[in-house]
């Protein structure tokens, strides 16, 4: 391909052009940006198939559930009314990495999409630490195949309604069905013995007969010991509600536990995506932007194609101001892309301010290396905390609002000035922290001796209680799985003051 020959002309695409463009993009992505990706598989689909993929949370294989039908009906009616366009692509974190591209896309759009999904997202999936730790890209499609088959089999054996009941409940708890930290390995016998002897040795060393003479509260002590023992046995407190119910719910049949497990696994699989939405999109957007610009520089993209690409690029990274009617939160594409462009700027053309704030990267001359490092080691929260620069805060004119519900007015707590940078940055980072985004719900105790009531706590942060109606509905689902009543208490995290007690919810009438 000569330096001045565009890779294609016109809007129509065909497989040969896609192949050619893919080759050119790959050259830049691997050669210049140094991306490392899973092998790619690009699949061309129709708009209807795209809607299909939407409704089943983007997975090519999914078990059947009414909620997916509901999403499909809603998306379809929105799409038909023209209220919503379809995504240009969907990409799946699997190996090979599957990117769906729509047949309606023009050739410039396909170019953009391939750079965005097949290289941007793909690189992020393969290299980001969270994905490496939590997801198994090679196994996911096989697992989904199994899940789909297993649930279909259960429907045949136990009836649609019985399966639906379990799935509904599991879906309601999906966001509280992930392990946030690697689990403690269950100790084996040798381990146990070693620890027991260590403990004994320690006790012998610390033995002091005087302790025996200290008076102690006889009954309460015993109660708390029992509680501690029970909690230890049940692995309480447990914030992975699905895990607890799967392992401990007394009334579930094995197939029901397996279904919960399937939902839990899927939830866990998507857990990194929730935490890296902004970075992931930013990475993909940065990659496509850099690549198409290079292609254009090299004369491989015609001006017309470039204009079309830039047009969609611009609408993707559009960030309306807070007082704009179109404002609906911070656009993850916009923020991610802006931060990564900013990092590139700092690496290449740092200002004095950058040198003070980011001495380790300012002017290091290796923007792509720096970015690759960031893509590998950070998630949204830590990425903002680490890399959001004063220059970008000024550019976006970010400011922080402090809102106390009791007061009639909100305060402007910090703006884009010397005093406010750190505070704005910290607050923005926190808004991406999944630990703050989702309420902290834990199973704390079970009344095993009595009525087997499950006790669940919500550790309230900043006085934000749960949505009551929703909570009651979810509790119903919890009770359906647990089989007995469930009680939810909302407790102030710092002071352990009970703010609100929900009514006990029992299981709904069984089928």
């Amino acid at each position, binding site marked *: 391909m000569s330096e001045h020959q565009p890779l294609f002309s016109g809007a129509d695409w065909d497989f040969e052009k896609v192949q050619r463009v893919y080759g050119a993009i*790959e050259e830049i992505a691997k050669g210049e940006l140094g991306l490392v990706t899973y*092998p*790619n598989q*690009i*699949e061309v689909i*129709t708009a209807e*198939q795209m*809607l299909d993929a939407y*409704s*089943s949370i983007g997975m090519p294989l999914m078990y*059947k*559930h*009414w*909620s997916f*039908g*509901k999403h*499909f*009906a*809603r998306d379809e*009616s929105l799409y038909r009314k023209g209220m919503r366009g379809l995504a240009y692509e969907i990409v799946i974190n699997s190996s090979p990495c599957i990117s*769906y591209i729509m047949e309606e896309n023009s050739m410039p759009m396909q170019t953009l999409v391939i750079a965005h999904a097949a290289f941007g997202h793909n690189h992020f999936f393969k290299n980001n630490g969270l994905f490496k730790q939590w997801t198994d890209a090679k196994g996911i499609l096989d697992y989904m195949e199994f899940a789909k088959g297993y649930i279909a089999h259960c429907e045949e054996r136990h009836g*649609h309604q019985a399966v*639906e009941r379990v799935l509904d409940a599991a879906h*309601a*708890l999906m966001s509280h069905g992930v392990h946030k930290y690697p689990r403690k390995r269950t100790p084996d016998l040798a381990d146990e013995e070693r620890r027991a002897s260590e403990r004994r040795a320690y006790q012998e060393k610390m033995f002091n007969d005087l302790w025996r003479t200290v008076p102690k509260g006889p009954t309460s002590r015993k109660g708390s010991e029992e509680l501690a023992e029970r909690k230890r046995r049940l692995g309480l407190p447990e914030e992975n509600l699905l895990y607890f119910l799967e392992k401990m719910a007394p009334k579930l049949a094995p197939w029901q536990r397996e279904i919960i497990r399937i939902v839990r696994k899927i939830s866990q699989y998507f857990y990194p995506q929730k935490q890296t939405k902004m970075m992931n999109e930013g990475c993909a957007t940065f990659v496509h932007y850099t690549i198409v610009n290079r292609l254009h520089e090299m004369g491989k993209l015609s001006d017309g194609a470039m204009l079309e690409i830039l047009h969609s690029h611009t609408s993707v990274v559009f960030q309306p*101001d*807070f007082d*704009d009617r179109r404002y609906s939160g*911070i656009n993850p594409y916009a923020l991610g892309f802006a931060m990564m462009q900013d990092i590139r700027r700092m690496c290449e053309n740092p200002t004095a301010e950058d040198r003070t704030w980011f001495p380790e990267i300012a002017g290091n001359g290796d923007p792509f290396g720096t970015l690759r490092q960031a893509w590998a080691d950070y998630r949204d929260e830590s990425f903002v905390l680490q890399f959001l620069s004063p220059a970008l805060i000024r550019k*976006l004119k*970010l*400011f*922080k*609002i*402090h*809102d106390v519900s009791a007061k*009639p*007015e*909100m305060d*402007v707590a*910090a*703006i*884009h*000035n010397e*005093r406010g940078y750190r505070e*704005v940055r910290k*607050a923005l980072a*926190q808004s991406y922290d999944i630990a703050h*985004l*989702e*309420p902290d719900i834990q199973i704390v105790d079970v009344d095993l001796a009595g009525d087997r009531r499950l006790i669940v706590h*919500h550790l309230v942060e*900043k006085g*934000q*209680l*749960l*949505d009551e109606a*929703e*909570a009651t509905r*979810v509790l119903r689902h919890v009770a359906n799985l647990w089989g007995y009543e469930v009680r939810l208490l909302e407790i102030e995290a710092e002071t352990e003051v009970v703010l609100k007690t929900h009514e006990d919810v029992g299981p709904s009438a069984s089928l």
Partner: protein
Amino acid sequence: MNIIDRRLNPSGKSLANRQRFLRRARAQIVKAVRDASGSRSILDIGNGEKISIPADGLREPSFRRASQGGIRDYVVPGNKEYVEGDHIKKPEKEDGGEGGSEGSPDGEGQDDFAFVLSREEFLDIFLDDLELPDLVKKKMKQTESSVPSRAGYSVTGSPANLNIVRTMRNSLSRRIALKRPKPADLALLEEEIRALDESGDDPERLSALRLEFDRLVARSRRVPYIDPLDVRYSRFEHVPRPVTQAVMFCLMDVSGSMTEHMKDLAKRFFMLLYLFLSRRYRQVDVVFIRHTHEAEEVDEETFFYSTETGGTVVSTALAEMKRVIDERYPPADWNIYGAQASDGDNTSSDNPRTVGLLEDMILPACQYFAYVEVGAEYKDWLGRDSDLWRTYKQVLKPEGNLAMRRVRVRSQIFPVFRDLFSKERNDNATWAAGGEGI
């Protein structure tokens, strides 16, 4: 890199999900569909329908924080005038300044859930658990439109049906079996002969080759490339397709006493019946007969929208119906349904003749005959039954195929219709010509 074209994959992957969704929301959907049918022109009822159902039972709840209360910090872009320490008045409705990332992932709270039902789905639900009475008598008629279906191969047939694959396969195996020389071998031999001929080296071999060549040519003439024996034709058998067909007679009194309102009620009832029949039968003919003191068969437009003046003689309509049946719809071939709408007036002297016609001619020919008495919306029922009602009541039998109902307002149409055709109808109760439908 692989590119895979998935566009031709079977579509409707989420059909199973949709069915589950419809089943889940069935109760609400049924209600919405019934409501929609009350408020809307019957003419569109057969089309797909956008319906809204309450989100109850379709919620996908999750633990999430309430949208208000507590202490919240937001970071938002686009500061224009604020400096640190400013106070912003909260918007009246507490959602303007929110970060946007909160709230339900679906963006649906108390709202109804709106979506589009396809025509098929709509009718399925709309006419669910209704059944045609007396299907036993359903006649099969063999129409001329029989369907060709494949039935193996034959040695005779029209050239259009020549099955080339079969023919060539036979030809090939025969040629192999009979050792027909291949054209390529012949060409080689010919080449060799020509070469020998030109050089004149080996006359003995040349003549042997020539003999061989002649033998092979003769053989390939004897063993033809395609023999009539090889030829096969695809065979089709004409399978007569039984077609159930129905004709529906709409009888209506159009004398001056029938108001627009009454006609509207009648029309709705007829439309429902038509929809229902057309779901059960491949072909449904509709015959419109209007009557005053005389009856005539008319087209739909005239039937519903033109007014006539004159007395009311019901028997004329029945006689006309009888004439049309005799002329065009032999009861042996057609399922005949009659639906009559009237305000109940009849000339008293006509009643015996009406009864006679109905009992002796019409009912024996019909699968089902429904009489709907339409009343004025505002007028309360007088204590006594109308002329026609009393007349028809004489004919009514528990096992008979005559049904009578009264309708006064639009919303009663569907319940009455359901009542007439519902599967689990209690015969005795239904046939006793009870008062108003519901």
